[in-house]
């Protein structure tokens, strides 16, 4: 069927901010959709609240709305743009949920907009577990036993029929929030009651446990002519019971027979048809009982997903692109497979390599969170690696995870040094160690790979390990084979050269890194590298081509292995630049940096350079095979990067765009003779080395907070006394605010130092004067060595002391005086020039009492680079890339923008963050110097209040229009809060507060109603939250005495979905937002329209 001509304008819905369970993969799918549909001549309207996405670049869609993805806003967009169709299958669960709301509110019908890809019925059949179950039963699918409950009595009755263990799943929650495995009746009652609360329709599903079964996934597609194909099978290394997002997964499936696979494939197609998936990609999960082979259906996602992004990268088949084309009427056989053109997309990709995905966790950021993996997803990112075998791919994935490991063990990091020591001790301790490791195998956490390793080292057999862990024996055997080679390696250098060569080659085929070999042979990685070269052991690069080599492929997507043939035809082109990506997403380093990398690539291509991308994150746009000229899907380590650089003979490497990851490699790459493009290595050092940096600041006369370095409590106490409390303390080596704390007195300092000693033995503690109640400011700037462009001065809403990545901010700044702004500009310009920045730079300032202090400077792309680019319409990363090739700012921008004020914008933009509190039960939700947010949104409107209200709405908290405000403020903030609370009262809000606060307010003429503290009996502050008697909460952290109350307030607010702010600044902004919203209804406009106002 040819494409549809009855639709001309298509609205694509993005997935909003990055949250656990929904990351860059939907930017990747959205970009593919927009590109391919635009090429077909459709007008594309996009809505996505996330400014860090590539899809929201104004040059992609015809109209780009950075607006909250909620029905009331999207209806405005529909009214304005009048699209013919909405494509809801590329924006994750967010887009599907929105499509459902639009349908249920009659908006689609009213405006005559059609859902393409999947319609309401399809979404309902797949998402509503009850309907899904019925549909599955009708077509004869086997399912786990189950039942629905709406109250606890019903739930208990069902659980009695099914027996324990069983699983509780609340309906309609994102990524399985609130679901859990239950082993006892007591546990059941707790989880079931919470689940009924968490579900927006107060419904839970209770299911037979398939814990320990094999978990498999099928990535399938269907077109409007009912052709169905499988793109990829995925097998989970981890058994059922661990969310697939938290599981190590492999492609293709390894332990199914061809008949089992044929059945699963056929069942998948039946499911596609029965659910009514009209066109596009879908993901279906199955479980197989390893004892009997019984195959049951678990769930189906009628959309592209994290798994489909993985399947796309794993096979080279662009699922999102093809899904988009299918949605407008093409059939699979009418679409070409880019890799093997002119052959069609109507085939099933096959692979001649193995793919492993490993998730990355951030438990260190959330003290108190349970680290045991379960049915609710907790990981924040993932890395993928390709190798010729599982062993090779796994080891590459582990080092690509960037958690300090160089492979599967043998790198000087023990899984558990204590346990190993116990074991080595022999005797009773040995038994204890074995028991402990058995326990660990049964309660899997992010270290489970190493627990398996330890178990093997302790002499446990594959069968024993399997019985506890339920990790399939095939995988366990592969891990054992890695260990066996490791054992051969320690004596490798004693052998003659040919034997050495044989063993090292084998080790490389098993995925061992040079660092591991160095550790095992007590050499340096550089020495191993030299030895390897001497022995002629070099990686070969192979192509990902969708067809297992059957046809000649036209794309350049490579991975490294150690095999007989290398397929890269290196071009003679001397204008060749390598761009290093950001690796797996983590808190503090996510999609923003992929945005920068992609922009860098695009700009370098514009300048006529051949671009080589290196990255290991399968969710990203940068790892799309048609982003760069050549893509190397490889871990970002010195070894892997150098291998590629030497192979490709690149003129230089860009380390500014991928966050801290490439920056950490820069020194060693530079030492190995690779040219670092842009800001030179000496300049990077100047900014990163505290002492050198301090000298620069002194020279430039830029105020900085007093600071000192201490290696003992005594020293620390002395410094703290000198500079005066409060002080900010942190270990010297950390990133992203890890283990940073604000300390108000000596006792707290002592406490911190004793903890920090564990964090980094022997490493000094950095102590800075903490600027209490200072306004924090972020500046992004460009410098070519001569001129500086100040791209944006962002004023934080939260005060200094809260990590900049967790703070909301506004651009243009709305409360800073012209003098302060001028000082900021002056400092920025002087610093950029003095350091010698060539490219991007980010500086954080704190403003207190009119004085502008510098906090830190980073000569690289920052988290805010995309936000500033979107807010101002000037694509910073592109300009930075061009500067790196030698272009001058004076050639790139109008002269009047240089060395002075930023480009003036005639509207306000607010960046707000989203935090993963709902994922981590029992974790306090207070913000601090350690970054905890996973993503961000942007609100854009005519003034600050409206932009802020939009940003809040986009971040998931709708500012209330009326109701009661619960106020709980520490002693330090009461006075300051008065004006804010007055504003709330003026807007008609009722004020609830605890005794002292209420008395204080009443004495100040503000009517406030008293609510009991928890210890004072009931009803108390928690009851008013759980009864939803309040519509807004202001809770600032206070002394330890009432910390428990504060904690309960904050956790319950999250659970019951009541907007809460934990700083007065945010409360103040909220009042402005509520006021602005009162004045008039929401209005929407695309970026393209805003930019016109500026010109």
């Amino acid at each position: 069927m040819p494409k549809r001509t009855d639709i001309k304008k298509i609205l694509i819905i993005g997935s909003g901010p990055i949250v656990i369970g929904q990351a860059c993969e939907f930017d990747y799918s959205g970009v593919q959709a927009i590109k391919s549909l635009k090429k077909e001549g459709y007008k594309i309207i996009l809505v996505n609240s996330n400014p860090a996405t590539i899809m929201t670049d104004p040059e992609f869609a015809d109209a780009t709305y950075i607006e909250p993805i909620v029905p009331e806003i999207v209806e405005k967009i529909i009214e304005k743009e009048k699209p013919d169709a909405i494509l809801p299958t590329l924006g994750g669960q967010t887009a599907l949920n929105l499509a459902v709301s639009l349908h249920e509110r009659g908006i689609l019908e009213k405006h005559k907009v059609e859902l393409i890809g999947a319609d309401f019925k399809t979404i309902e059949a797949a998402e509503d577990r009850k309907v899904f179950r019925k549909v599955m039963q009708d077509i004869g699918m086997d399912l786990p036993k189950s039942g629905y409950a709406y109250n606890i009595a019903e739930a208990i009755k069902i659980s009695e029929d099914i027996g324990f263990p069983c699983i509780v799943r609340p309906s309609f929650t994102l990524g399985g929030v609130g679901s859990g495995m239950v082993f006892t009746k007591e546990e059941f009652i707790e989880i079931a009651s919470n689940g009924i609360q968490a579900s927006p329709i107060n419904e839970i599903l209770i299911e037979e446990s398939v814990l320990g079964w094999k978990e498999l996934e099928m990535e399938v597609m269907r077109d409007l002519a009912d052709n169905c194909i499988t793109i990829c099978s995925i097998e989970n290394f981890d058994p059922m019971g661990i969310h697939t997002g938290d599981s190590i997964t492999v492609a293709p499936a390894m332990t199914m027979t061809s008949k089992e696979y044929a059945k699963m494939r056929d069942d998948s197609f039946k499911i596609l048809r029965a659910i009514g998936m009209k066109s596009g990609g879908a993901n279906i999960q199955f479980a197989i009982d390893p004892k009997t082979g019984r195959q049951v259906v678990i769930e189906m996602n009628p959309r592209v997903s994290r798994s489909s992004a993985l399947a796309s990268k794993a096979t080279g088949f662009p699922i999102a692109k093809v899904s988009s084309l299918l949605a407008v009427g093409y059939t699979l056989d009418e679409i070409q497979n880019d890799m093997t053109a002119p052959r069609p997309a109507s085939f099933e990709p096959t692979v001649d390599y193995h793919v492993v995905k490993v998730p990355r966790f951030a438990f260190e950021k959330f003290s108190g969170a349970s680290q045991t993996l379960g049915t609710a997803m907790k990981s924040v990112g993932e890395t993928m690696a390709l190798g010729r075998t599982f062993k090779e791919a796994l080891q590459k994935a582990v080092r690509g995870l960037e958690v300090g490991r160089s492979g599967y063990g043998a790198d000087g990091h023990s899984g558990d040094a204590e346990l190993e020591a116990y074991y080595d001790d022999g005797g009773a301790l040995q038994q204890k160690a074995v028991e402990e490791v058995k326990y660990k195998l049964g309660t899997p956490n992010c270290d489970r790979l190493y627990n398996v390793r330890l178990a093997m080292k302790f002499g446990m057999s594959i069968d024993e390990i399997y019985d506890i862990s339920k990790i399939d024996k095939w995988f366990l055997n592969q891990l054992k084979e890695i260990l066996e080679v490791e054992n051969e390696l320690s004596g490798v250098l004693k052998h003659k050269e040919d034997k050495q060569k044989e063993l090292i080659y084998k080790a490389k085929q098993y995925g061992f890194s040079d660092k591991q070999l160095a550790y095992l042979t007590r050499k340096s990685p550089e020495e191993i590298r030299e030895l390897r070269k001497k022995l002629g052991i070099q990686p070969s690069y192979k192509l990902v081509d969708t067809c297992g080599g059957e046809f000649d492929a036209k794309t350049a997507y490579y991975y490294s292995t150690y095999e007989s043939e290398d397929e890269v035809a290196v071009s003679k082109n001397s204008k060749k630049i390598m761009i290093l990506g950001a690796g797996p997403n983590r808190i503090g380093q996510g999609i923003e940096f992929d945005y920068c990398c992609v922009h860098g690539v695009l700009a370098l291509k514009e300048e006529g350079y051949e671009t080589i991308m290196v990255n290991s994150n399968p969710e990203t746009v940068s790892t799309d095979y048609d982003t760069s000229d050549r893509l190397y899907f490889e871990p970002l380590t010195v070894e892997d990067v150098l291998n590629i650089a030497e192979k490709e003979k690149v003129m230089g490497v860009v380390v500014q765009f991928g966050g801290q990851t490439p920056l950490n490699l820069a020194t060693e790459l530079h030492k190995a003779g690779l040219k670092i493009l842009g800001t030179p290595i000496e300049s990077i050092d100047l900014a990163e080395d505290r002492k050198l940096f301090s000298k620069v600041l002194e020279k430039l006369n830029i105020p900085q907070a007093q600071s000192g370095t201490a290696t003992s409590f005594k020293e620390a106490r002395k410094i703290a006394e000198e500079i005066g409390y409060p002080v900010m303390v942190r270990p010297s080596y950390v990133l992203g605010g890890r283990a940073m704390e604000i300390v108000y007195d000596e006792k707290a300092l002592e406490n911190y130092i004793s903890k920090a000693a564990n964090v980094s033995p022997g490493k000094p503690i950095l102590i800075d004067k903490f600027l209490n109640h200072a306004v924090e400011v972020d500046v992004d700037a460009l410098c070519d060595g001569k001129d500086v462009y100040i791209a944006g001065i962002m004023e934080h809403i939260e005060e200094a002391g809260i990590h900049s990545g967790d703070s909301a901010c506004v651009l243009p700044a709305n409360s800073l005086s012209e003098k302060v702004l001028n000082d900021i500009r002056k400092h920025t310009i002087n610093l950029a020039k003095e350091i010698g920045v060539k490219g991007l730079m980010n500086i954080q300032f704190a403003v207190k009492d009119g004085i502008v202090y510098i906090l830190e400077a980073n000569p690289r792309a920052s988290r805010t680079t995309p936000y500033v680019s979107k807010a101002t319409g000037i694509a910073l990363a592109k300009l930075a890339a061009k500067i790196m090739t030698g272009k001058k700012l004076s050639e790139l921008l109008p002269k009047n923008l240089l060395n002075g004020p930023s480009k003036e914008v005639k509207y306000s933009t607010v960046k707000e963050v989203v935090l993963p509190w709902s994922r981590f039960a029992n974790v306090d939700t207070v913000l601090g110097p350690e970054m905890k947010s996973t993503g961000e949104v942007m609100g854009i409107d005519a003034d600050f209040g409206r932009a802020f209200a939009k940003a809040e709405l986009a971040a998931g908290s709708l500012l209330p229009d009326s109701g009661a405000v619960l106020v709980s403020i520490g002693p330090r903030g009461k006075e300051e809060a008065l004006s804010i609370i007055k504003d709330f009262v003026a807007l008609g809000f009722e004020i609830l507060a605890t005794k002292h606060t209420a008395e204080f307010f009443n004495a100040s003429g503000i009517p406030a109603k008293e609510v009991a503290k928890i210890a004072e009996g009931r009803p108390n502050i928690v009851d008013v939250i759980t009864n939803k008697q309040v519509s807004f909460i202001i809770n600032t952290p206070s002394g330890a005495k009432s910390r428990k109350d504060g904690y309960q307030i904050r956790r319950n607010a999250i659970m019951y979905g009541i907007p809460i702010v934990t700083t007065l600044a945010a409360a103040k902004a909220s009042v402005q937002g509520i006021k602005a919203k009162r004045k008039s209804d929401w209005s929407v406009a695309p970026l393209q329209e805003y930019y016109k106002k500026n010109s």
Partner: protein
Amino acid sequence: MVLKKGYLALESGKVFEGTSFGAENEACGEAVFNTSVFGYQEIITDPSSFGHITCFNHPHVGNYGCNKDSNESPGVCSGGIVVKECSAITANQLSEFSLQELILKNNAPGIEGVDTRALTKHLRDNGSLKAVISFLGDYPSKLVEKAKELKIDDSKYIPEVSCKEKYIYCQGDEGTIGVIDYGCKSSFLKGIASKGFKIIVFPYNVKASEIMESEINGLFLSNGPGRVLKEMSASVKEIIEKCPCLPVFGVCAGFQVIADAYGAKFKKHKIGRHGANHPVKNLETGRVEITAQNNRYTLDAASIEKSKDFVVTHINLFDNSVQGIKHKKLPLFAVQYYPATAMSETSYLFENFFGMVKKNA
């Protein structure tokens, strides 16, 4: 454990070194790659693989073991097996024996540690090549010479793998289906039997008269390796002419026999079609089927059109070759790929055939 070293030597001069995971002997044949990830047991026991040195390009082979039920014939038909890595353990509840055990029992050599992607690309670019796998200690250069000197006559394959005598495979009351065994996969027989038909299996060189005397209600022309012989198509032609109402369904070699019977020409394909992902378009429905294939010849489209008796029903979308034909008037049709007897988008072919047979019973 010291693994026995050996070589895969190709007539092109290319040699791959590896270690043994099967019989430590020598085998000759045409090196053929297979892109399927699943189904190694079915592929090497498929009689259509006779004469092949089968190279699996997916690196992990043998993972889920083997079982009796998955054998497509009593033993291994491939001359030798080439893999990157053969799993040391079998990880599936259905496994009864390992791939190593299967090939050892059949005295076939298996070589592992080979860069199977490089091998695949070499075969893709050079066409299938004569090859020797050897663990007998000869120098690679000698093995290359040996490969060069190999005489391959693929018209001898079907007589090798066909049954020697007629036999009754099973009884049934839905009607009787005659199967001419050119190297028939067991799964076809099992699939037909599961629908309640009586099956009589005939050897490849069965006389038309013998089939006609057998009171069958339908005739299935099976798959098989290599080139089909004139005598095979002659006798099938005779049956069709004398019993125009007899439903006849051919697959793979059976497809070639029917086309050949009507004067169509075949050309040997450079590498053949060996895998599980070939898209075939059904021209009657417009639907695309993903098919498993193991065949070496390409039908000359012009020559079948010339016969005027047939319509082309299926086209392979990888190479646009004709892979399905149907007689305009008679209940006679064939496909070159492997249709499924149950499940899968290709099972309708057998279902259609069974319907015709029942009508004719």
